[in-house]
Each structure stands twice: as structure tokens, then as C-alpha cells.
């Protein structure tokens, strides 16, 4: 960029590219700064090996689907390893450690650096908030959001997930458990439905053996490869990839406006401010650090948008010495969840599915759901073996199944499995159905992202994350876990394992810069003018349970309009 941009956006994850594309279409020039690498851009043919010749890219001609496919290997360790995976929270150079966050609990915190951010590895679940939660609790109305939901749904685009074996089994069990199909986008009562996913529908020739899977993987549409979590790179071109991470949806659209530039490998360490003529503090730019060279720069703009995620956005506020606000970093909500895994015998599956296995690795990684306003939701999940083993049998607040006395008979086993019991559980992998029970988490002031007073990394004081669910959230999780277990039993599961996950499994974090407390209803900070938030942290609460990405994208679309009309 030769001249100062009008707007600087910090973070190219779920929200940043959306606001950038919308502003770009209004003729406003935008620079998006991203801490991680860029996969699928010809300017960085080896994004993890060297810093490349260029610093930024704004030409859609730089985007390259075949490069994206080569880089996204679909191997779970190569892509999803928390320490060295391509989708980790860390610098592009994988010889280096990830960026440290102090999470002093048995904890796993999903955060991803790179153009696309956490949408690189998300399952593309793109559903709306529960209307009653927005209407009863938020400072805006559900009807304010609907036109923006519709716009994002059309742009990504969103379609209900196709049925594969594991979804068919889930619907069967949910039906037997007394639930019915909820044929809606606006959920007001409990029921099951396919996930509204930002994944292109399967190609019409997918079931036609005259087309090879190799051919189909270069054509438009989902091939049901099950690699959502490894960043599905199947499609005829980068902007036509089946799973609609922002890096293949909003990023190309933003670049096509001719007004948006993306700069990867750039960590923002400080928001810069000055005072306007009335003496009020306002954002004026950012200080950045090149993650390859350590060089720092100051960049100026008329407006700054923070979209660095629920951990980094409050950390950046606090490291920038912006005005004190007791709610910055506070009110953290989490997708506080548990998981139950049912194992089925071949005969049962033959009777229901006409095939002897569920093959959880096939189809959308999460294609079916049960909404339960007031409690949260239940989703099916079919991850690859390493991810499954780690989460289902290696991560638990219950401890080890083999040294605990069993309480009650609802679950055949609970907690971590070791040795032969682990081996047995994994041998049954292809005949399992796993359900996650995800709580409508309650906002608590004590749940927070704060600065660690003792530890700094190259970007300043590191974040420390503290989370302890409320009594109400714990009760909700228990109820949902029992409902999920009942669905598995009703579907005919012979054995049900309960993971009993620790509360500090951090996923879909929200509400650390809450609307009505830190930002106003247009998502502009109360205490710093020209400073906006466009990520999950602006949420008032946890939406009633639904996955937050679509709401963040709808809000970012709305914020773009409000920001443009106020300052441009």
C-alpha cells in the first residue's frame, strides 16, 4: 500500500475479511493485518519455510487453488497439531514454538493463525443465534440481525448439510428419543435438523461411478471427504473450494473490490491513539511487528477494527494502555461441552443404515444437530483417529476409567482410557457415533482473559485465560449429556462412553469485549472513538448456544455499514 489506508483491520479470521469486503465494496480502502501465514497465495509459495519476496497481496490473481491443495495436506498431525501444525496459534515458521498463552488448567485452547484464522479448521457450522436470546438479552433485536444473516448466508454460501451414514443414525436416534425435525433457520423450540453449513452441496455426479473421485475433487461441490478440520482444499479454484473458510470466500471477494490489501506475518502489538478536537481519545493506527524479521513499524488509518479473536483482542487493548474498562477481557463465555460416544454392532447398523459401519470420518465433520433453547445444543462429530482419540479418550476431568469405581449405569465407561481398553475403543472407531453436548454458557464476570503479570513474549505481556463455569452452566451440560446419551441408546448403541471433558476445553470463545459494556451497539468502543470490534468478543453472550461464526459475520457486515456512514 502506497498511501495510508482508510481502515486497518487486525486479524483475517472469521470476522476481519467480512468487514474488509463490505467496506471495500463501499469504496473505502482497507489494510487487513494477519499474524499468521497465507496458504494458497502465489506470493508465498512456501509460506512456512521462508518469508517470501512480498509483504502483502491485493490482486485476486495471486490466489492459487492448486497451491492451497498442496499446502493443506489433510493429514491431521501436519495440519492440526497444537505445537507444530499448519493451523496452530503461532508464527508461519513451524520450527518455532507456538505463541504462549497461560492456561493454568487441564486445557486445550483452539486458536488458529493464518489468513482465514480459525475458519481454516472450523467445521463451517453457520447457524443463527436463538432469537429469544437476542431479543431478551442483547441490546439489539433479532430482527436487526436477520437481513445481515441473510446476506452472509447467500455470500458464503450456507446450505443444510447432506445426510451421510452418521447423520442418518443421529436423526434415527433423535426421532426415537422423541424429538422431531425442526425445519427452520430461526430456532424457537427443540428439535433436530441438519447443520446449516458453509459448505457447497455435493457435486451432482458424486454418486456416479463414471466420475472418479480424483475428477470430482477438482470439480465444484463437497466430496464428503471428511477433511473439514484439516481445511478441505477440494474444488476447481481457490474461491470455489467446498468448505468456505474466509480465506476462500470473503478474502477473494474483498480482493476483487480493488480496495482491500491483506498482509500476513504481521502481528499487531499496539493500537495507537490520539485526541480529537473535542479532547476525546480516538484510534489513529497500529504498531506492528514482522513475525519473520522482528522489524516494527507504525501504520496510520482513520479507523481501526480489532478482529483478532476473543483472546487477542482484549490482550491487545490491555497491552495498548487504552482506557480502563472493568469489562475488557471479562465475561468470557465458552462452548462448555461434553462428548459421548456410542458403539454399535454391525447388525444394528445394517438394520438402520443398510451398511455395517458409520465411518465417522466420512461426510461433513459435523452435519447434524439438535437445538435445545434453554440448554444449548447437541451436534454430531466425526473426526480423524488422532483427534478422536485425544478428545474422546485422553482428555477428561473424570480421570482414568480404570482406577475409578463406576457410579450409576448410564455410561459403560468414562474418562481417559489406557492400554487394552483404549485399543478396544479405537478398534470400534468405524462403528461409532460421537455427540457433543454444548452448553448455553452463562456470562460470569470472573471468567476472563487478562495479562500475565510475569510472562512476556515478543509481542508483550502474554494472555492468561481463566474459566470456571457457573452452577447453571454445569447443570445444563449434565442435562444435555444425558439427552445425548439417550439418543445414542435409542439409536441402538451397545456401549456408551462419556468423555467428561474438562471445562477448560476452549472452543468458540465469546463475549470478552461485550456489546453494551465495552462496545456500543455499532461495535465501536465506548472509550476510544474510531476503534471497532468485529470478532466473537463483541457478543453480549453465548447466543443461547449456537456456534458463533455466522453471527460474528452478520455483525461485521452490519458494523461495516454503520462505520462507513459515520466516518466516510
Amino acid at each position: 500500500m502506497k498511501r495510508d489506508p482508510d481502515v486497518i483491520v487486525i486479524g483475517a479470521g472469521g470476522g476481519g475479511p467480512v468487514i474488509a469486503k463490505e467496506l471495500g465494496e463501499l469504496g473505502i480502502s482497507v489494510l487487513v493485518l494477519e499474524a499468521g501465514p497465507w496458504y494458497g497465495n502465489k506470493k508465498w509459495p512456501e509460506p512456512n519455510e521462508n518469508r517470501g519476496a512480498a509483504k502483502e497481496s491485493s490482486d485476486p490473481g495471486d490466489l492459487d487453488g492448486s497451491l492451497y491443495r498442496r499446502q493443506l495436506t489433510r493429514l491431521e498431525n501436519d495440519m492440526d497439531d497444537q505445537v507444530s501444525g499448519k493451523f496452530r496459534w503461532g508464527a508461519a515458521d513451524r520450527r518455532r514454538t507456538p505463541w504462549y498463552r497461560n492456561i493454568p488448567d487441564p486445557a486445550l485452547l483452539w486458536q488458529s493463525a493464518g489468513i482465514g484464522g480459525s475458519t481454516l479448521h472450523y467445521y463451517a457450522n453457520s447457524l443463527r443465534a436463538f432469537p429469544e436470546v437476542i431479543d431478551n438479552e442483547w441490546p439489539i433485536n433479532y430482527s436487526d440481525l436477520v437481513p445481515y444473516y441473510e446476506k452472509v448466508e447467500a455470500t458464503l454460501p450456507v446450505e443444510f448439510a447432506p445426510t451421510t451414514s452418521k447423520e442418518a443414525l443421529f436423526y434415527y436416534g433423535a426421532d426415537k428419543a422423541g424429538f422431531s425435525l425442526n425445519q427452520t433457520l430461526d430456532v424457537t423450540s427443540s428439535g433436530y435438523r441438519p447443520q446449516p453449513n458453509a459448505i457447497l452441496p455435493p457435486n451432482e455426479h458424486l454418486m456416479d461411478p463414471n466420475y472418479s473421485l480424483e475428477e470430482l475433487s477438482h470439480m465444484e461441490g463437497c466430496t464428503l471427504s471428511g477433511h473439514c478440520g484439516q481445511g478441505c482444499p477440494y474444488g476447481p479454484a481457490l474461491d470455489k473450494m467446498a468448505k468456505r473458510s474466509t480465506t476462500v470466500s470473503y478474502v477473494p471477494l474483498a480482493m476483487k473490490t480493488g480496495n482491500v490489501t491483506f498482509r500476513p506475518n504481521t502481528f499487531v502489538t499496539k493500537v495507537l491513539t490520539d485526541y480529537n478536537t473535542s479532547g476525546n481519545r480516538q484510534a489513529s493506527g497500529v504498531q506492528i511487528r514482522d513475525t519473520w524479521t522482528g522489524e516494527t513499524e507504525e501504520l496510520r488509518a482513520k479507523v481501526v477494527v480489532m478482529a483478532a479473536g476473543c483472546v487477542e483482542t482484549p490482550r491487545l487493548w490491555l497491552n495498548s494502555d487504552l482506557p480502563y474498562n472493568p469489562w475488557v477481557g471479562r465475561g468470557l463465555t465458552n462452548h462448555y461441552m461434553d462428548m459421548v460416544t456410542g458403539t454399535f454392532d454391525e447388525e444394528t447398523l445394517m438394520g438402520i443404515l443398510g451398511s455395517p459401519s458409520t465411518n465417522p470420518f466420512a461426510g461433513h465433520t459435523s452435519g447434524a444437530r439438535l437445538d435445545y433453547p434453554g440448554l444449548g445444543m447437541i451436534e454430531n462429530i466425526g473426526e480423524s483417529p488422532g483427534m478422536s482419540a485425544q478428545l474422546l479418550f485422553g482428555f477428561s476431568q473424570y480421570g482414568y476409567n480404570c482406577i475409578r469405581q463406576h457410579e450409576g449405569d448410564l455410561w459403560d465407561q468414562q474418562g481417559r482410557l489406557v492400554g487394552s481398553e483404549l485399543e478396544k475403543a479405537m478398534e470400534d472407531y468405524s462403528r461409532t457415533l460421537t455427540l457433543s453436548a454444548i452448553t448455553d454458557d452463562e456470562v460470569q464476570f470472573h471468567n476472563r482473559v487478562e495479562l500475565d503479570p510475569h510472562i512476556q513474549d515478543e509481542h508483550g505481556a502474554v494472555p492468561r485465560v481463566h474459566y470456571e463455569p457457573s452452577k447453571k452452566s454445569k447443570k445444563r451440560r449434565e442435562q444435555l449429556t444425558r439427552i445425548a446419551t439417550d439418543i445414542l441408546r435409542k439409536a441402538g448403541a451397545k456401549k456408551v462412553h462419556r468423555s467428561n471433558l474438562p471445562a477448560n476445553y476452549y472452543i468458540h470463545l465469546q463475549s470478552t469485549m461485550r456489546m453494551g459494556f465495552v462496545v456500543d451497539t455499532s461495535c465501536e468502543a465506548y472509550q476510544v472513538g474510531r476503534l471497532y470490534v468485529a470478532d466473537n468478543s463483541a457478543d453480549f453472550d453465548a447466543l443461547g448456544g449456537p456456534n458463533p461464526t455466522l453471527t460474528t459475520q452478520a455483525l461485521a457486515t452490519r458494523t461495516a455499514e454503520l462505520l462507513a456512514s459515520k466516518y466516510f
Partner: protein
Amino acid sequence: MLPSVQTGYGTPFNNMDLGVHDYIIYSLDHSISIQQQLHHHIVPLAYPTASMLNIAAMQLVYSQHAQASPQSMVSSGGMFSHLSRTDRILTLSALENLEIDLYVLPSPFHNNAGMVKYVTDAVNRFSLFGYYSEWPAYGSTRLCPPGDRQLEFFPLTWQQVGYPGVSLGYRDFRGFLITMAEVRT
């Protein structure tokens, strides 16, 4: 905590052969780095974690909650390696429940419950992810920088659990229960 692997050809592999311990050591030694003045330090965790396991094992043995065997699983191994599988699990359990004297643990675990809980749990997760992901199949390149690793064979555990590995797709389309077009109208 991991099972033993049989290849089906009569050659038993054990976890040492799959190299999962190398994965855990690599992961522990590459988890944390901090900035101190001009120095960007990596904080290696593998050695202090091993010490922590030995110290915790010793406390369990002294309090007669675990029994040490004269045989170690590894040459010149510490107390943890002299315990049975169940007693090793009890040791991990005691650590995550903080049922040990945190004062005698080495830095960074010394009186640092959060770090003890985080790392004890991570050892479990790393073990299972290392074992059931493709990591062991990087074979002789598994300790190279991530970008230089090459898969040398199909992962044995994937074969064992029936995971086909990287897939171009599956012909398992069973139709749509509902579509956006139906719901919109």
C-alpha cells in the same frame, strides 16, 4: 498408557518403536517460549516433566500407594519407570489432583499448580494424538523440522482402526433432509 501394536505379520512393535515418546518430548520441548530482554528463550519442559513424574512416583512409593519393581522399563530410568502400568496411572492421577508436595517439584512446576495440571494433562493428549495420528509414519524423518518430514509408510494405527487416511471423497450421499430453498419459502 498406550496399547502395543501388532502389524499382523508377526512382528510386534511396541510404543518405543513407534517413537511416540519422541513426539511427547518434542512437543514438551517446543510448547513455550518467552522474551527476556534481547533473548527469546525456549522453555524446555521434557526434562522437568520427567523429573516431576519421578518425584511424584517416589512420593507414592514412600506413602505405600505404589510399589516399585527392581526392574526398570528403560535403562537407568527413574522411579516412574519402576512402577507397574496401574501405578504409573495412579501417579499421573495424583499429579493432576495435586495430591503431591508441589514444593519439591523442579521449575517451572515448583509451587505452580496450574502448570502441573496443564502439563500432566498434555502428556495424556500428546500420547494419544502422537500414537493415533500419522506422526509415527514420518519414520526416519519424524524429528526433522515439520516442513522436511515425509510419510514413509501408511500409519499402522490408521490401518488398525480402519481409517483410510487422506481421502478425495466418499460416495455416501444419502440426500438432503431439508434445503435452504425449502426453509426460505
